[in-house]
């Protein structure tokens, strides 16, 4: 039951986040796709290609976030 509670909590936070991004007019396709993958796959379904693709997407987002902020105080 603890797992169900935790998964529900994650789902609700994720959905709130996606809703918030959508309200800001942001592209939510990557976030929605990732959120779906968190819940839809069974352990034996994850292929090496899917894992590679997920890692590529995450690395791109992390690269973007690590770039210096274009605003100074």
């Amino acid at each position: 039951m603890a797992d169900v509670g935790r998964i529900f909590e994650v789902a609700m936070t994720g959905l709130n986040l996606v809703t918030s991004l959508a309200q800001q007019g942001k592209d939510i396709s990557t976030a929605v796709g990732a959120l779906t993958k968190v819940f839809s796959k069974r352990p034996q379904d994850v292929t090496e290609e899917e894992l590679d693709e997920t890692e590529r997407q995450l690395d791109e987002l992390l690269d973007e976030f690590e770039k210096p902020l274009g605003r100074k105080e």
Partner: protein
Amino acid sequence: MKKFLIALVLGAGITLGGCAGMAEQALNLPSGILTQSVQNPVTRDHLYRLENGLIVGVTALNSYKKLCESGQLAANCIATVATLQAYVRRGRPLLRQLRIFVRKNDQVNARVVFDQVQMILVELRGTAAAAGIPIPQTP
């Protein structure tokens, strides 16, 4: 005979458990790591879910960063972004190591690094939550 076998199995279990504890002390590893890594392995599925959870979270961080850059947030967002970037810089080398350990099925190291990544994520989530950015936990 049956009782002898049960005693033997129990004895072996206690002895092996003790060995794991001694090995953890000798190798300066966190308590329970050697037994935990076998009982609760970090699989490719765990990695997949962790990374997809991070995609959702980092999408939110990038959104916050863009709002900050465009001047739509108060000036203290600059410090918040810098703090969050520091967590990302600390976490990325660990994530790269985790990917390698999981693919090699090196469970002892995978568990150690997985737990380190989770600790950084706890700190990152705290900082993000204080700035009003909800970062979902990974299941």
